[in-house]
């Protein structure tokens, strides 16, 4: 079992340890992105367009996008 997985945030690859969450992927890429989501200035959406929470589990290869205007989020 690989210790790391790679997800894509706004198209950029981010490699984090397995077991980490959306929050860690954002921190890993750019702390400011995490802060924007934490503070409600943006929400994270998956490739289906669904909002995902900061505590959401990651799946290898998953793609996330920051929606700076969107709502209907969760942690």
């Amino acid at each position, binding site marked *: *079992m690989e*210790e*790391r997985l790679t997800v894509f945030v706004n198209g950029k690859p981010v*490699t*984090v*340890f*397995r*077991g*980490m969450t*959306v*929050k*860690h*992927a954002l*921190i*890993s890429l750019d*702390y400011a992105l995490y802060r924007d*989501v934490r*503070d*409600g*200035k943006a*929400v994270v959406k*998956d490739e*289906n367009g*669904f*909002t*995902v*929470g*900061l*505590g*959401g*589990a990651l*799946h290898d290869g*998953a793609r996330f996008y920051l929606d700076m205007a969107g*709502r*209907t*989020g*969760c*942690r």
Partner: protein
Amino acid sequence: MLRNGKKLTASLLLLFLVVFPLTFLSAEAAGAPVGITILHVNDTHGRILPEVEKGVNKKRPVGGAAWLAKMVEKEREKNPGGTLLLSAGDMFQGTAVSREFNGKPVLDVMNAMKFDAMAVGNHEFDWGKNVLADLSRAARFPFLSANIRDGDGKRPPWLKPYVILERKRLKIAVIGMTTELTRYIVKPENVKGLSFLEAGDALPPAIKEAKSQGAKTIVVLSHAGLDADKQIAQEIPGIDVIVGGHSHTAVTTPVVAGRTIIVQAGCCGHFLGVLRLKIDPESGRVVEFMKTRVLKKVYSGPNDPFDPNIAGIVKRYHDRIKDRFSVVVGETAVDLVRNYGGESNIGNLIGDAMREAEKADIAFHNSGGIRGNVPAGKITLEQLYAVLPFDDVLVSMDLTGKQILLILEQNAAVERGILQVSGLKVKYDMTRPVGERVVDVEVGGRPLRPGKSYRVVTTDFVAAGGEKFAAFREGKNVRYGDDMRDALVAYLKRHSPVRPEVEGRIVFVK
């Protein structure tokens, strides 16, 4: 005889004409699609009080068990006798009140709300198997997972693979599924002796067994995440609905993969999932389902209706948490004072606690994660929550001396929020250029060797590269440990009164 025969034929014809339509109508009524409503939540993470979640609504509070319960009550009234209430796991870990009472506040709420079943999530193991088994025994609904086995290959006694729920004479099997990655993402001691089978090995036999018990409709209550759920739906036949969790996805329109409908209700109790189905009672197949408005926001402002009984349960625990917070967990002989720009005695204390908890050579903790000071004297739990307000968990890994040197050089380059250390002494010459400032490093009293592997513990925040310490992302043999606060409480209980000093672990030559 003939006449009598004609009479008999006429009588039979009359009987046929009268009875057959009645039978047909009766059969049609019995065979008409059954309306079933699945109410669901997932990843509530201990949240039983409302909160303002700006991503959901800037001002109006959302979540809160009492408000959720009221919505459930209203939905049940719309389909009496045809409603299920399910949880897809990760219900307990995540708030102080739930942590301090080992999940009991959440369980009491779930019992009172009459949940029908809950899948076991990975975070259900955060406080160890025994706590989870106790919760399961105290629950008035089954804890489900078809893919967890103990050392003998059997299912733990506190766990059921599935439950068959009967609604409107339709037997619905609800089968639990826990992410198979649990063994990698939970503190190893907490899942020792357990194995987590892949869905392809665990679900087909469970589906077969449930069908042999008369189940017509198959619902998988999955704590595996939306992407994994889609894969399960594509690869494993016979699943009608997957009620998911783990990825905290607010599935606003049901996903259909193969012939399986997949839903998930975000997280934190901010949403109630409402899936309305029409099911053919003969085949158990879903013939129709509502495709919109499947997630309802749980608004919990002053004008939103709530369940007073559930509110009473929540209040009782919150009254008790005040007492629990005042419990003394240790004592310090000196003031514990933080310092973002240099070594601090509270940073040393926390680092020592981390290193002891994980039996590591070195601990690193970000100064920005230490949010308060503690005066000399008794230390209460409330003070610890103020000092460490973030829900960080320990992450340990192997790093080479060379990687540690890189981290230390990065440490010398940050203006504020340096890493506090334990097990290590470092001297920086700040007159030298960035990247060449580390002039001396000792680990356990010996010079750091660039080629040697050291066991290093830090927090999940730092391990992800937080505060730009990217070298942690290169670690190997990663292991998740306890919550930071739990590690500190355990250390204080063992070593109080503590007397941490600023002792030259981090020295700047200017």
